[in-house]
């Protein structure tokens, strides 16, 4: 207690030092005077009295100093003094300071911004109540993530699992519907969720209420909860939305609640409707997997415990429904980690890259400090001679480095605030959890820790060197500084390290760029140029009659094909790369597989005649669909090459029969009439799946996508397409009008941005490393001017001098190169999952990058080497 009190007193003693000092002087003075008076009384002369009194005091100034130490906190005071001294150094050499601070601020800023995104995506708890108890339950088949779960399975798990407080399904694909707004038809997205999803997540509606359990039962009245954004758009204020109703696919739905603007979960949709057993998408049977499950564990239940319970239920379901549930299970993962899957590799890659760049920047600054350290040696030697201890000098130098680092940190945080908004775009992910643009304390703490680490990293070598015990000896020798061998080898080591690290970054960037080029150059199986895509959705109510739908699209196809500049128009339920879709169990009807019927599925698309022709998918055998493939005619199918091979091996597929489980009581049987080329459906990077095309005339959906082949810029006919569609029906909108080239470009955006970003960082690293290399050589040349002068005077040719410097520089660069290659061999394996078409040790990339680095290094060496070669022996010798 007393010690704490004393400490507080001393802490306040740091303040108003002036007054305390005056008081102390006065007290000492009165003490002295009393002593003098006493001495006078004892009979001394005034001079004697004063002398005696002063002698007795035992050194007034020293006494004051020990009082000052007792009054304040000497350690804090010297530290403050060290930092003040550091700031003075900053002011004394502003150019040097600016270079150091800006270099480091860029590094710290980039690191902080990246960390803030990692913090938002991975570390900051999800904005739900007690998020640690939330889990994502995903279906596995034979151990592999599916990840969607079928509705009947979901209800079985829900009824039997009792370790969960909430167990709610959500349909993870946004559905859309057309609304008639004031400005014509508009699109709204919606999805189905278990009535208690929001309760499970623990998010209260901003207005209105959650769904009631009754509203989750089949046959209940139609209700929806809408998003704040949608409510604002359609009703002005969220509050007004509650109680109104709007149609979804022609059926009016009453709005009972509005979710807050901050609510984000999976895709942002406009409205959520309750999932009902047996209704709509929840009516699909057990072999159709459409749902994700979010669970809230009961307090005290571990994830492992919940997993064991679900495993027991999975086994039970497997016995009960062997046809659909063989080897099917449910895997429970923490919600946050599961949602972040897939986003993490680019983030960690970016973090590693910016970390390495900062490391190189630190090495550069350390090199600069070391070089400056030799200039400052006389000053440091003087301090040492005046009695400053080694520790004291090291501490002062470190304090200087920390001053630089902390200044950089402040600037870096400012930079990070700006970068933070830019980065998600660059990395290609949406940070929808948490509010962007705000720096949490964790992020600030990270920036502070990083700044201190940075200061120590680049300050420790100069501090140790600066405080070495040679100082005083050198002071004695004279102010002329000489390079000791150790100092140079330390700077050499820094440069070798820089070159090695930048090589690693360059190789990483090179691999990603090459892999991106491969990806962009991949043939998706159709012709992407001059192709305009879009979609048309017919309102359910007006187009309940299937023949009306067929008539509409048949007519539209003719209209579009007649546009000037259009070669052909194709219609399909799903365009490659652009749209998602589903797969259905399909098998050879004459050779049905024994057990795992549902493991073999095929992607299903409905097309109008002429689609293959329009997008240039080659017809390999048989025929395209025709008008004859209609309602009452036998079901027909066109398969892709892969499906033909998978189902029929070498036998000709034409005329064979394929059974497809479409969810009805009996599988439907089709006759194969044609074989077309493989098309990469989901992404350019994924190989073409087993695919079956069915005739639109036999499966007339309300929504179709079109692809129009033009002989000019596809965007130029967009307006014309809109007009033609509206001319057919004013209530039908055209949506997502975009050229196929842009679709592919957008689909590759994440890969492109991550490789461009990494290339940028690698370029910065290369630049910093070359500056480091240049610095070391330039410094050594300037130090060796005298020696070189002597050499030239003794007959060394320019070429020999040039070679001398170049050799030294290239020795450093090549050592770094060798070290970097060895490290890269090990490290690039971490990139494996992000590469396409090349291995992580792709020799071409390693070669190209090594050559590039060697060239740049040679350039960095050439400048000081040329300067060395130009040394005039007379000038150099006189310079002494």
């Amino acid at each position, binding site marked *: 207690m007393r010690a704490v009190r004393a400490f507080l007193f001393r802490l306040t003693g740091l303040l108003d030092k002036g007054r305390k000092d005056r008081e102390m002087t006065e007290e000492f003075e009165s003490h002295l005077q*009393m002593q003098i*008076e006493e001495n006078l009384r004892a009979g001394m002369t005034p001079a004697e009295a004063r002398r005696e009194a002063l002698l007795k005091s035992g050194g007034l100034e020293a006494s004051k100093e020990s009082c000052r130490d007792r009054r304040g906190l000497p350690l804090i005071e010297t530290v403050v003094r060290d930092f003040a001294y550091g700031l003075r150094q900053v002011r004394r050499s502003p150019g040097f300071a600016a270079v150091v601070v800006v270099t480091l601020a860029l590094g710290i800023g980039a690191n902080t911004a990246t960390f803030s995104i990692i913090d938002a995506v991975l570390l900051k708890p999800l904005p739900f109540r007690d998020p640690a108890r939330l889990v994502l339950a995903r279906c596995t088949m034979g151990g592999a993530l599916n990840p969607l779960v079928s509705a009947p399975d979901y209800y079985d798990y829900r009824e039997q699992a009792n370790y969960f407080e909430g167990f709610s399904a959500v349909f993870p694909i946004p559905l859309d519907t057309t609304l008639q707004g004031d400005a014509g038809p508009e699109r709204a997205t919606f999805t189905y969720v278990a009535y208690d999803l929001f309760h499970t997540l623990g998010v209260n509606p901003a207005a209105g209420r959650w769904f009631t359990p009754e509203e989750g039962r089949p046959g209940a009245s139609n209700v929806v909860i809408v998003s704040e954004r949608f409510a604002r758009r359609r009703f002005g204020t969220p509050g007004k939305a509650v109680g109104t109703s709007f149609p979804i696919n022609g059926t009016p739905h009453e709005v009972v609640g509005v979710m807050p603007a901050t609510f984000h979960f999976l895709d942002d949709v406009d409205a959520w409707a309750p999932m009902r057993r047996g209704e709509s998408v929840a009516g699909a049977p057990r072999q159709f997997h459409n749902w994700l499950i979010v669970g809230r564990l009961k307090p005290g239940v571990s994830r492992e415990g919940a997993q064991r319970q679900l495993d027991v239920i999975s086994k039970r379901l497997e016995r009960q429904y062997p046809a659909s549930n063989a080897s099917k299970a449910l895997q429970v993962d923490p919600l946050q980690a599961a949602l972040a899957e897939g986003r993490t590799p680019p983030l960690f890659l970016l973090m590693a890259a910016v970390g390495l760049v900062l490391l190189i920047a630190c090495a550069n600054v350390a090199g600069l400090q070391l070089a400056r350290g030799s200039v400052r040696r006389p000053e440091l030697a003087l301090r040492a001679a005046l009695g400053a201890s080694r520790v004291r000098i090291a501490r002062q130098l470190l304090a200087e480095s920390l001053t630089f680092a902390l200044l950089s940190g402040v600037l870096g945080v400012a930079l990070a605030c700006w970068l933070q908004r830019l980065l998600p775009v660059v990395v290609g992910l949406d940070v929808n959890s948490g509010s962007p643009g705000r720096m949490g304390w964790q992020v600030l703490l990270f920036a502070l820790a990083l700044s201190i680490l940075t200061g120590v990293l680049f300050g420790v070598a100069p501090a140790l060197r600066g405080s070495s015990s040679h100082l005083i000896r050198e002071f004695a020798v004279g102010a002329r500084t000489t390079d000791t061998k150790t100092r140079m080898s330390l700077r050499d080591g820094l440069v070798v390290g820089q070159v090695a690290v930048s090589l690693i970054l360059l190789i990483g960037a090179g691999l990603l760029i090459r892999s991106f080029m491969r990806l962009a150059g991949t043939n998706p199986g159709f012709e992407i140029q001059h192709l305009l895509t879009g979609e048309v959705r017919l309102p359910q109510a007006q187009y309940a009659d299937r023949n009306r739908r067929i008539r509409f699209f048949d007519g539209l196809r003719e209209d579009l094909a007649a546009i000037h500049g259009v070669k052909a128009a194709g219609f399909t339920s799903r365009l490659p790369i652009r749209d998602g879709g589903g797969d259905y169990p399909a098998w050879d009807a004459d050779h049905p597989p024994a057990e795992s019927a549902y493991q073999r599925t095929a992607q299903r698309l409905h097309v109008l005649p002429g689609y293959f022709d329009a997008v240039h998918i080659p017809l390999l055998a048989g025929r395209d669909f025709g008008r004859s493939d209609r309602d009452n005619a036998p079901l027909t199918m066109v398969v892709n090459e892969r499906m033909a091979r998978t189902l029929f091996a070498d036998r000709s597929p034409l005329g064979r029969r394929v059974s497809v489980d479409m969810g009805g009581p009996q599988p439907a049987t089709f006759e194969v009439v044609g074989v077309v080329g493989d098309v990469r459906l989901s992404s350019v990077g994924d190989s073409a799946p087993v695919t079956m095309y069915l005739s639109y005339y036999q499966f007339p959906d309300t929504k179709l996508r079109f692809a129009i082949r033009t002989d000019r810029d596809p965007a130029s006919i967009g307006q014309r397409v809109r007009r033609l569609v509206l001319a057919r029906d004013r209530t039908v909108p055209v949506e997502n009008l975009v050229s196929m080239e842009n679709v592919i470009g957008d689909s590759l955006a994440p890969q492109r941005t991550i490789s461009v970003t990494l290339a940028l960082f690698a370029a910065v690293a290369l630049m910093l490393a070359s500056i480091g290399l240049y610095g070391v050589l330039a410094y050594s040349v300037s130090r060796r001017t005298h020696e070189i002068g002597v050499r030239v005077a003794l007959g060394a040719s320019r070429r020999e001098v040039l070679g001398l410097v170049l050799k030294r520089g290239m020795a450093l660069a090549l050592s770094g190169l060798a070290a970097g290659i060895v490290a890269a061999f090990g490290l690039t394996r971490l990139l494996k999952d992000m590469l396409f078409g090349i291995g992580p040790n792709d020799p071409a990339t390693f070669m190209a990058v090594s050559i590039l680095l060697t060239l740049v290094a040679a350039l960095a060496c050439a400048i000081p080497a040329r300067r060395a070669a130009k040394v005039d022996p007379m000038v150099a010798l006189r310079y002494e």
Partner: protein
Amino acid sequence: MAEKADVWQGTLALMVLKTLESMGALHGYGIARRIEQTSGGLLAVRYGTLYPALLKLEQEGYVSAEWGISDNNRRAKYYTLTRAGKKQLAKEAREWNRTTGIISRFFSPSEEAS
């Protein structure tokens, strides 16, 4: 001139507290003189030891300080014992007596033997 011993910190605090207890409020010079007198001129109290000790006692709350006027009309800082200081003095005096008692037991028999 005979060599005078410097007092050391721990015991000086005790002496200061005891002095203030017996003399009441006193300035630094008075404390120093009193300690020197009490020691029979064997101890010398220097500024460098006295004033840091007084500061420490003040920071710990055992003494309080106030500016006043001395007998011969000089401004001086007067130190007085606080209640906490009185308690502390009693405690330290007890401990001191015990310690010296123990130490003297080590020395007295050997004296008898010689």
